[in-house]
């Protein structure tokens, strides 16, 4: 039921003619729209809502996703341009405006209902694909852009565009379309030697009917995809001209600094605005339910004046919550490790812990807004402009159509700027309303950003495993607290009893999706434990895993490739070790080998990371590689150093001095290899994250005999075991 196929995707669009509306709560399914030809198409040469060919032969591709560092717009444009046979040098991209027409809620349907990434699942009723909580969905998250928008949108749109251009050329030349070929944005009739550019055909092509089922190129004929292409946004990122949410300038705007209730959910009890109100440049002190803000003529003035205030907040009844109290609750909820079969020759148990983590994107949160009567403009970097729009509308009591979201580049997303995380849009528009109609840019300090995040959950897991007399695993089971679902259980290994059970232990810390979501901690738990089981069996950790992957050839191939890249099994100097880990998330399988050294004094140095990736196929080889490199560094910072702690209900860490991350001196060399498989396209923004921490912990064990079971690793002394 509701099986997603390419035919229904296009067919529905053309049948509906003026728009394909499906579902309830005003939710518009966008995929149908790509095949619509707007009424003014001939004038503008607009072939589909996603692709424009202008008379000067420029192909512009509208991207319904944001740029937060992954190079998604470039990869998506490559997918469309490949099908079109467009000249890459004449392809441009543009982010789609925050309008229902560009909603990409279909990313959910693209999964056919079989698997929806956790970040998208909230609020989705699987039966009807009803979007229960919001009116729009234009999300960049869940590593979905390329595999959904690209595979189900861009390719089809590109192919449809090409067929329309062919039909126009056939008409112009008076020949059969089948006798034409396309290359580099030109269509050629080889027999007569005539050729014509896409641009020259644009307006004629736009007047033609949209094909309902265009033919896609066979992957073996790809010429653009799988190559390394420079990102289209790169020039602006080396000359300082890229505009992020923080950089927006609206004429006449003021600046706001904000202090929020230190304990999440706390309310502003009282504040005397007088000390700030009289300071230079200050326009207004704005009190909100859970925050106080100062609006001034510069951020410096606003911030200085805010510091003069002494707001009193309540603690929402959470004043006694601490990291220790949360882990105590986890500990009690989890209880003893699961029981193992009585016929086991050997059983082992282990407990793992992972901390809360902040996203800490390099760009602190910022939101600029102007509220004027029944109209509102919002300028911010968001991973979902439509949800940002509805958030603003709700805060102001407006209709979503009265709000205009102007999305900006994101200085890192990592999940912080996903739907449901738009506290900053809510606050930004409320402040703007208080000084209406003057536009105001609310800037969060790093301290605001660090202490008011939607954190990666902390977690505790107790594992038990059983081996038979030959060292073959009979069972692996775990009880865990902290979030998780399939990520806790899913393992590719042939183990008869494989089970993970969630134990409920609630806490008031605000959590959210963090790059690779719950695979980030469960990957560490699972792949550390498998390693422990391998050692308990007296087997090489790579061979142990490999022996359990006979029925899963894709996993096996990835594992073997990582081992090969790392020269697994060759001798290393004393104090050095290799560790391996294998995980799957967002449709991609990644194995990583970490090569690390632990000195006699217990100092750790990560020397090399080798990554093998099966994401089905690669679109832009260079950005794909960059995502793997970046995911590994992001994960390495967390594995080694990062931890968010809680005291008296509030977050302790304030800035980069106490929420630590690695620098260039700690960055290892990363070697990446992609395996092409017959699998569906997998995501790449996240899947390189989960294997890193366990591979590193496993390497440390190999190097010095210390088993790290708690993150960050810096909490465990690495003094070599004799």
């Amino acid at each position, binding site marked *: 039921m509701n099986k997603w196929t390419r035919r229904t995707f296009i067919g529905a669009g053309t049948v509906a003619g003026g728009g394909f509306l499906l579902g309830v709560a005003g939710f518009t399914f966008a995929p149908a729209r790509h095949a619509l030809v707007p009424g003014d198409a001939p004038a503008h040469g607009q072939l589909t809502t996603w692709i424009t060919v202008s008379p000067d032969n420029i192909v512009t591709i509208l991207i319904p996703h944001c740029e937060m*560092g992954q190079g998604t717009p470039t990869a998506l444009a490559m997918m469309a341009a490949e099908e079109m046979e467009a000249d890459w040098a004449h392809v441009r991209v543009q982010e789609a405006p925050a309008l229902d027409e560009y909603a990409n809620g279909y990313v959910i349907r693209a999964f056919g209902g079989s698997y929806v990434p956790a970040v998208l699942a909230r609020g989705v009723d699987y039966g009807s694909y009803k979007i229960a909580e919001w009116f729009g969905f234009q999300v960049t998250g869940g590593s979905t852009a390329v595999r959904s928008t690209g595979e189900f949108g861009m390719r089809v749109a590109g192919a449809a565009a090409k067929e329309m251009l062919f039909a126009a050329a056939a008409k112009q030349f008076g020949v059969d379309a089948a006798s034409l070929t396309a290359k580099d944005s030109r269509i050629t009739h080889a027999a007569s030697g005539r050729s014509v550019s896409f641009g020259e055909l644009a307006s004629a092509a736009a007047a033609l009917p949209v094909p309902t089922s265009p033919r896609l190129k066979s992957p073996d004929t790809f010429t653009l995809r799988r190559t390394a292409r420079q990102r289209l946004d790169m020039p602006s*990122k080396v*000359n300082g001209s890229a505009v992020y949410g923080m950089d927006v300038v609206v004429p006449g705007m003021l600046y706001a600094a904000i202090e929020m209730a230190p304990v999440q959910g706390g309310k502003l009890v009282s504040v005397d605005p007088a000390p700030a109100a009289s300071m230079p440049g200050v326009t207004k002190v704005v009190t909100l339910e859970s925050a106080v803000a100062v609006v001034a003529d510069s951020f410096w003035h606003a911030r200085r004046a805010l510091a003069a205030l002494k707001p009193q907040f309540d603690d929402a009844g959470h004043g006694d919550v601490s990291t220790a109290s949360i882990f105590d609750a986890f500990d009690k909820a989890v209880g003893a490790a699961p029981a193992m079969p009585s016929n086991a020759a050997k059983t082992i148990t282990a407990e793992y812990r992972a901390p809360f983590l902040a996203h800490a994107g*390099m760009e602190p949160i910022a939101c600029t807004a102007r509220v004027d009567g029944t109209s509102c403009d919002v300028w911010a970097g968001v991973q979902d402009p439509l949800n940002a729009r509805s958030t603003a509308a709700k805060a102001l009591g407006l209709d979503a159509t009265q709000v205009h979201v102007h999305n900006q580049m994101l*200085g890192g997303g990592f999940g912080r700027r996903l739907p449901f995380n738009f506290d900053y849009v809510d606050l930004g528009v409320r402040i703007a309303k208080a000084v209406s109609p003057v536009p105001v840019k609310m800037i969060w300090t790093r301290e605001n950003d660090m202490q008011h995040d939607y954190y990666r959950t902390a977690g505790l897991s107790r594992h038990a495993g059983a081996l038979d007399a030959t060292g073959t695993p009979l069972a692996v089971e775990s009880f865990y607290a902290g979030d998780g679902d399939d990520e806790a259980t899913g393992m590719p290994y042939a183990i008869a009893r494989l089970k993970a059970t969630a134990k409920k232990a609630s806490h008031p810390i605000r959590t959210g999706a963090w790059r690779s979501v719950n695979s980030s901690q469960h990957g560490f738990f699972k792949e550390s434990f498998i390693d422990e089981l391998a050692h308990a069996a007296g087997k090489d950790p790579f061979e142990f895993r490999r022996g359990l992957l006979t029925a899963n050839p894709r996993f096996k191939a990835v594992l073997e490739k990582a081992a090969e890249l790392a020269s697994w099994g060759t001798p290393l100097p004393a104090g050095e070790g290799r560790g391996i880990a294998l995980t799957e998330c967002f449709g991609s399988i990644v194995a990583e080998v970490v090569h690390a050294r632990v000195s006699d004094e217990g100092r750790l140095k990560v020397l090399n990371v080798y990554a093998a990736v099966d994401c089905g196929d690669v679109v832009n080889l260079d950005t794909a590689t960059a995502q793997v490199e970046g995911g*590994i560094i992001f994960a390495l910072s967390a594995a080694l150093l990062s931890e968010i702690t809680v005291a008296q209900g509030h977050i302790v860490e304030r800035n980069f001095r106490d929420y630590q991350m690695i620098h260039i*001196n700690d960055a290892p060399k990363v070697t990446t290899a992609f395996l092409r498989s017959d699998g569906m396209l997998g995501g790449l923004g996240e899947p390189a994250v989960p294997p890193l921490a366990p591979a590193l912990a496993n390497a440390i064990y190999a190097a010095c005999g210390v088993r790290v079971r708690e993150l960050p690793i810096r909490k465990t002394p690495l003094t070599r075991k004799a």
Partner: protein
Amino acid sequence: MPIDLTVNGTPHTLDVEPEMPLLWALREQLGLTGTKFGCGIAACGACTVHLDGRAVRSCTLPMSATAGKSVVTIEGLAHEGTLHPVQQVWLDQQVPQCGYCQSGLIMAVAGLLAQNPNPSDEDIDAGITNICRCGTFARARTAIHACARTEGAA
């Protein structure tokens, strides 16, 4: 108190408090938003600019310390329409991801190479302490070495 300084070759007189950090004067008074706010405590380097040719972190540098001096920001690094060699190699090596920290990183690297045209890995480790959350470090290192080679050959 008016403060005279030169920014990207243009003289300016700014009427700001002497303790206002240079970062905010650049961004909000002069509209040069290429220099980024990252931490406000000189820990991340996103705000790096050149002050009389040396890389400094502008988020904690008071305007009073800039009086009579010459500031170069990322917007002023290119020369007569030609990218600075660091910018060019950054493009060639496709270093940035989200790009937010890259203005500061590029300015820090340009500052390092001005002092030490052929830095060793240890020099890079000691001299480049910027934070990048996207994890562009390995590419940045490759790019620094590539830049040193190109410039050395020229």
